[in-house]
């Protein structure tokens, strides 16, 4: 079962898999639609208003055991609604609502994928076994008048699990089938920890190389698959950053756990160098992969909607470098002025970048060797006193990341703290 669009500008969105069996597809859609009204009522008239009254309007942060509504919208169309809570009595997660739909302007199964990603990240951060149950009872009580809208809220209800009979929602099972993960097989009312692991890996977008490195990393025990997916989905470390770290170093496991003890300065120094390099290439990637012309005076308005260029990357592990493909024509960003003027590089489709805290002779030699094959740059922090003319003479571009070394270290410290206080 595939989905054909009558009107789309992107060929890669055509023929996306909806299901692998027409009968299963029809059955699951019927099952989903049968419970839709009950689910919508639960979300829109009970869970939503109760949450608004007790947390949103009270400016209060809910604890993980509170039933929390989640809404996913794309261009003013709501494509996904769900409500879930950590359930200490099973040391897992309880899902009480799950409503998704397919719309023409959103990729096939995207609502289920995005909701599943949010739910799995929540399950990971809340601790527990990663079991996700759809049949747990729950009470919801809220009485009062919302402060802003003045709406009267009177909710006093007991739920007996998800409206689709407490089974894993049909839409989610259908999405699972489309990516080769069969959900509810161990127990029709739950996603088992084993299935949750497979689903986490399926919903986390990863280019093929990174996917292979992630697989190799959890096979070697660098980190659990759940942690690696959480790191990516919560953007503690972004895709090119994690790819780079996994490819070039054996210290990535320690970085993902929050870093070595500060007293072991040698170890911390090595980890800092790796993390700084990863952070700089992450920033450069985002700069290269955006059409956003914040400084473009020719355009009257700054457009921030889907402005990605589609730059891809490949890590060169033996020289600790990254090669970007599909870079737009124009000046390469972050170039400092040269003594003979600013180097204008036009139409650079591929660029190889060596991220380093300082441009030393070894790096320069390595970069100039690579420069025989194409455009090569070394990226350093903005307060590095490396000489762009010296790099230029070696046939290499010097790029200065906008952040100074201290600022990079501050950003790394925040990432390491996030890693330390998320679960083991």
């Amino acid at each position: 079962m595939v989905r054909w669009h009558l009107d789309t500008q992107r060929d890669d969105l055509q023929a996306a898999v909806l299901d692998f069996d027409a009968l299963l597809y029809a059955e699951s859609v019927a099952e989903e639609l049968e419970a839709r009204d009950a689910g919508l009522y639960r979300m829109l008239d009970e869970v939503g208003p109760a949450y608004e009254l007790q947390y949103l309007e009270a400016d209060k942060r809910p604890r993980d055991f509170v039933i929390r509504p989640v809404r996913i919208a794309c261009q003013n169309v709501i494509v996904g609604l769900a409500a879930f809570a950590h359930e200490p009595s099973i040391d897992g997660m309880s899902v009480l609502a799950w409503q998704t739909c397919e719309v023409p302007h959103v990729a096939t199964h995207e609502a289920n994928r995005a909701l599943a990603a949010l739910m799995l990240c929540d399950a990971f951060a809340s601790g527990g076994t990663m079991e996700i149950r759809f049949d747990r009872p729950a009470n919801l009580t809220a009485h009062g008048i919302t402060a802003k809208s003045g709406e009267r809220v009177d909710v006093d209800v007991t739920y007996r699990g998800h409206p689709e009979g407490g089974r894993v929602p049909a839409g989610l099972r259908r999405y699972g089938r489309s990516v080769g993960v069969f959900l509810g097989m161990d127990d029709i009312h739950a996603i088992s920890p084993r299935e949750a692991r497979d689903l986490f890996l399926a919903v986390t977008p990863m280019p093929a190389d990174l996917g292979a490195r992630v697989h190799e990393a959890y096979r070697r025990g660098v980190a659990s698959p759940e942690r690696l997916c959480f790191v990516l989905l919560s953007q503690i470390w972004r895709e090119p950053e994690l790819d780079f770290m996994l490819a070039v170093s054996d210290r990535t496991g320690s970085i993902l756990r929050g870093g070595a003890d500060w007293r072991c300065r040698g170890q911390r120094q090595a980890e800092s160098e790796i993390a700084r390099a990863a952070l700089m290439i992450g920033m450069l990637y985002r700069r290269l992969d955006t059409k956003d012309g914040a400084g473009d005076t020719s355009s009257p308005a700054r457009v921030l909607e889907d402005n990605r260029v589609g730059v891809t990357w490949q890590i060169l592990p033996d020289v600790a470098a990254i090669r970007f493909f599909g870079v737009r024509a124009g000046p390469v960003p972050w170039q400092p002025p040269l003594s003979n003027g600013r180097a204008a590089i036009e139409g650079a489709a591929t660029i190889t970048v060596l991220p380093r805290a300082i441009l030393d002779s070894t790096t320069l030699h390595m970069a100039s060797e690579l420069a025989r094959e194409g455009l090569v740059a070394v990226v350093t922090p903005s307060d590095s006193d490396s000489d762009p003319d010296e790099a230029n003479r070696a046939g290499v571009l010097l790029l200065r990341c906008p952040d100074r070394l201290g600022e990079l270290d501050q950003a790394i410290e925040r990432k390491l703290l996030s890693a330390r206080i998320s679960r083991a």
Partner: protein
Amino acid sequence: MSVERSILVRLPVDQLGIRTLVGDIRSAAARVGKALPGERTDIIRYEGLSSRLEQAARRHLARAGAQYVEIDMIDAPGDSVFDRDDADRLPAGADAARAWLTAGDVAVELRDPFASGQTVHSAFAAPAPEPEDPWEAFDDRGRPLFGTAAIAARFRQQAQAAVDGEDGAALSPSGVSNRVLTEGLREFVAQAGTPAWVPVIYRDGSAGPAFPLRSVALRDEIPVGWRTHRFALLSIRHTEMDVEVDGAWFRNTDISRPRPAGQTDELAYKLSQTQLTKVCESGPALIYLYQTGLDTAILGFYRAVTEHLMSRPDSLAVVPMFFRRRREGAAVDRSVGGYEPQSTFVEGTPWTI
């Protein structure tokens, strides 16, 4: 794959500011020990200063005539700078560096994680653990338990496994409600049997200090005539308790910082040890503790209470006070000091001998 390389660079101390920088690094390191657990201001300062020195050494290395020696990479505690006072910390094979230190200069270790070569992966690396098994609690008749009863059953099961010394078993207080945690701990502290110091592991993977279970024979009676104090567990957390209490046991600003849970537990434990000693200095004390559900603070406090009772049995009694939700529209039928309390509390089982 790139490999890591380590070198020692000779840095002349007559260069501007090097001597001061080394002094600052050492002083920042000394200050870290005085900070609260999880407080990283001095650590960040130490790391920032160390980075400055390492960058200076990298710049120096680029100059003609710079001296360096390659050394074996050892991930041991220590600064990246070596001077005459800690020459014995220099790794084997760094004889040249010893001579630099004797001459009054310093050696700075530089790590280059991006040298060419094949990355060596840790020999002890093991695959990631398998997914966990689902967990469900059942009563004596095999019916599934829900809500608080299930949470209590889970905590009891973990505690029992931990005191029995099962492999990998530990107390896991994260997500366990205030009352279940306090009463559950008390039950196992007072349990007869061989005393057991059980590990405490939080949801974030951090470990608190071990908790002494089966260590004290607790009684249920509240002592009469003892000096009485009423404390909220945390300041500025549930201010509606203020009318009931004399003060707060912990300052919220110290406890509620983002840090690994095990460090918060350790901080709460150490503060409680000090404060319990002070409170009991001039005779036995009875504490009514108005609790909030912060698991790390509860563990830290009751670990200190247990140890205090082990060493000074007749000096302390603690009565936990648990918040009880008032029914919607129910009238308040009491006042404290002329004020109408906004919350009601129920007494838990006392911790005393």
